[in-house]
């Protein structure tokens, strides 16, 4: 099991609470770092502090300051995070968002369901697949 940090980029505190709850109920016990907008997310990844890469980044698209698609673009443009796993987790089912996310190199695109049972199930499967079954790319050293 990949027990590195999960980076959750989400500005809505309700969604943060529900996502954390869904992790817990699915026995995903990785440490979760929450970034409340794109700037915080990029700061965490490329800031001056020495940190390992998260095992996965869950990325909302509609974010204050720097939006999710821009975060994704910069993550894929940087040698250090080029191969990092990014799952877009959003409310939108607009075609343009789907197409753009995938063409910018998102690994998955999950739409947050309104029904919490479905949401919980989705988060569970996500954890099972990305943290347990899927072999992560070899860690790239995070050089500041």
């Amino acid at each position, binding site marked *: 099991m990949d027990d590195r940090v999960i980076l959750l980029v989400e500005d*809505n505190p*309700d969604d943060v609470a529900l996502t954390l709850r869904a992790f817990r109920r699915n026995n995903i016990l990785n440490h979760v770092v929450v970034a409340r907008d794109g700037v915080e997310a990029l700061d965490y990844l490329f800031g001056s502090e020495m940190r390992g890469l998260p095992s996965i980044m869950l990325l909302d698209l*509609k974010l204050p300051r720097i939006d999710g698609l821009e975060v994704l673009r910069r993550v894929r443009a940087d040698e250090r995070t080029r191969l990092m796993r990014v799952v877009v987790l959003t409310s939108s*089912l607009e075609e343009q968002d789907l197409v753009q996310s995938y063409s910018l190199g998102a690994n998955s695109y999950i739409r*947050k369901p*309104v*029904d*919490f049972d479905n949401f919980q199930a989705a988060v569970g499967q996500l954890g099972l697949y990305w943290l347990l079954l899927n072999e992560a790319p070899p860690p790239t050293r995070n050089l500041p």
Partner: protein
Amino acid sequence: MSNYTDRETRYLEFLEHTTDAYTFFEVVGGRRFLLEAVNSAAERLLGISEINCSGKSLQELFPPSVREQVQRAFLRAVETPGNSTTEQCWCLPEGDRWVQGSLVSIRHPGQVPHRLVAVWRDITDQKCYEQALLDREEMFRRLVETTNVIPWEADFTTRRFTYVGPQAVRRFGYPQFEWLSEGFWAKHIHPDERDLVVEICNRLSTVQNEFEFEYRMLTQSGDVVWVHDLVNVAVDRDGSLCLRGFMVDVTANREAEQEVRRLNAELERRVVERTAQLEAANRELEAFCYSVSHDLRAPLRAIDGFSKALLEDYLDRLDEEGRDMLRRVRAGSQRMGDLIDDLLSLSRVTRSEMRTTTVNLSDLAHTIATNLEQSAPHRRVEWRIEPNLTAVADRALVTVVLENLLGNAWKYTVKQPYARIEFGRENDEFFVRDNGAGFDPTYAGKLFQPFQRLHAVEEFEGHGIGLATVQRIIHRHQGHIRAEGTVGKGAAFYFTLSPTSP
């Protein structure tokens, strides 16, 4: 005859053979005229003979209308010395004759005239000829001078008009003599194109027999007249160039053309404006839908998620009524989530781009029927799907149409022991017909409005979006859809996917 001298004989012979009618009168008292002698030509002209008529007065010789004219001329001839002439039209029994008379009064020196010789020449034929010429000239004059096309003639060497029709005076205001003055034409061409027009005219006149060109002239009051000039170049007998032609006032045409151009430009501008407005409205709609999709669902997720959390974490502190309430909260938020999704798909139907191909609707219907049967394997439904029905349509959109219509039929026949669902074609219309719950035809118009339902939610589930979506898709294909139904006796939906009338 032998009594006459040679000279007299010659005179007599001349008189007898000339075609001019010689009449000799004795003048009595300067007022009365008595016939003395006539020659043969006069006998023929007047229908008299000398033997019977010598000594007779004018009254006895001529019919009254002729007599008065003759007498007047005679009196004048007597009063004026020397020769006089007169031209008269005589109404004679054998018809009107034009005669020209040469009158000579003869007098002894210092006395009143005692004799008057009148020589009459029949000029009727000449008169007719002249009249014909005059009539013809009049006809041509009317022809060229009564229409609005201005005739003109000009001498190329002096660059002067030698003739312009009176229309030119009326249209431009300059009097005729100005038109005929030197340099008039060039002087009154619009200054912006004067040199060019004169240059063109000069050049074409020397190389072509005929040409046309258009230019602007100024009227006396300063108005602009667009002239279409048709020019013919001819070499006159003396070898000089003569230009003739017609000027047509095409100002109205030119103005109409300009108006058409202006209207076109205006239309173009409006289309651009409207398109921009539509694009803006579309962008706004996009933004709105995006925001609905994102922002409206987030609070619903919180309502549902935290209700679920309450049910899980605080279950022991809630009685059955409290739990029921929370379940209703969850059901409500989930239902609203579905409604939002339906609304979004409805708007997506309008926004998505159309890609039309030939679609086999029968195959599509079979696929949908199979899916429906798999969703409820215990149901027994008779499907009647007419084979090989095709339409040129957007496959994705027309799939939505059939899914909705067949899905509705499936849904509303659930209580039928012998359910039957048909898909086929009647005349120009496709139809989906069932023997299910039907509907009250009074409310048929409400069927296609979003969120309008004719059945209670408990009876048949649904959001009232499906048929609104169907109608939008049909309209995007420029077709139409209508519904027929009776309560308890089933429903039928007829639609087309192209603009052909039913």
